[in-house]
């Protein structure tokens, strides 16, 4: 499949080039022209379909000079790393930075520091909480482990969420407006367009026994 699409894309450029400059069209009989038109159509379709055919997902990152927020004249651009140089080596995702940050941690591709102050206690909790138990969308199985790999308890408790299971009232509207889970999801961690990553547990099957029931 890959070889076919490569061949198609290679020759399609020549066909498209010829077509644009009428090289092959001039002086041809009408049935031949029709055949060429078919080829041009096939080539154009191959161009459009190329990305999903040739590779699972081609990740691209804009260089800092073209990202719309850095000043292209800033001397920093000669020093700072471009996103592609770092992110292309990390496990792929389709959303956000196009990096699966939790996988990057778990696979040991990165090992970011947990603390700077030696006296800081690094806390990890491995308890899953089931949320949205009475809603219409699939149940949310919230994993503390993946969250505490990155965050400290105090980042979410008690000002965003009470620690007592069942005590919190969640609202997608508030989340979409950047409150609750939306403080991070939609801003820095995977975005809210990835519904099924949180709404990940079917309602019509037995609930995972190890998980704690929340609200």
């Amino acid at each position, binding site marked *: 499949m890959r070889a076919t699409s490569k061949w198609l894309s290679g020759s399609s450029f020549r066909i*498209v080039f010829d077509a644009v400059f009428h090289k092959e069209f001039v002086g041809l009989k009408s049935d031949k022209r029709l055949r060429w038109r078919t080829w041009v159509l096939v080539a154009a379709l191959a161009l459009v379909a190329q990305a999903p055919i040739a590779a699972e997902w081609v990740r*691209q990152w804009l260089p800092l000079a073209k990202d719309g927020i850095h000043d292209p004249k800033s001397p920093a651009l000669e020093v700072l790393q471009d996103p592609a140089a770092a992110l292309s080596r990390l496990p792929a995702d389709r*959303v956000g930075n196009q990096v699966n940050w939790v996988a990057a941690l778990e696979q040991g591709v990165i090992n970011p520091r947990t*603390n700077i102050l030696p006296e800081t206690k690094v806390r990890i909790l491995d308890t899953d909480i089931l949320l949205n138990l009475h809603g219409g969308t699939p149940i949310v199985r919230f994993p503390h482990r993946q969250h505490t790999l990155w965050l400290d308890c105090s*980042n979410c408790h008690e000002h965003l969420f009470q620690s007592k299971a069942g005590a919190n009232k969640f609202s997608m509207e508030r989340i*979409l407006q950047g409150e609750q889970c939306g403080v991070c999801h939609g801003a820095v961690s995977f975005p809210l367009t990835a519904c099924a990553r949180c709404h990940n547990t079917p309602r019509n099957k037995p609930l995972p026994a190890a998980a704690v029931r929340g609200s």
Partner: protein
Amino acid sequence: MFARLVILVALGAALAAAPAEAEYADVVLNNRSEKEGVRAVIFSHWFHRIRFRCKVCHDELGFKMRAGANDVRMVDISNGKFCGMCHNGQIAWGAERCDLCHSGRSGLKSRIHGGHETLGPGRW
């Protein structure tokens, strides 16, 4: 004519797929910078989270998780607070290298950038 039309459609579709935004979760800090005559600060979450977990800055260093909510002054940084905890010439470049952080184009407001982000009164 027919061929040109097909080609244009194909090229249009190819170009439309290209990204056109700041990197996801880039933060602009400009509460004070441009008023004080320097470029706005661009903070890249992607660069920092490769090296530090969220809890380092958002717990130990005390950065609130809301773009624009942190009143960061250069005097604090020079005294080892906020960015100055690392940007001290030991862990990362020191505060005297102004241009490396103050690198934003003019007229930017303090906010978080990148695609997919939510909007609403909950955001700063």
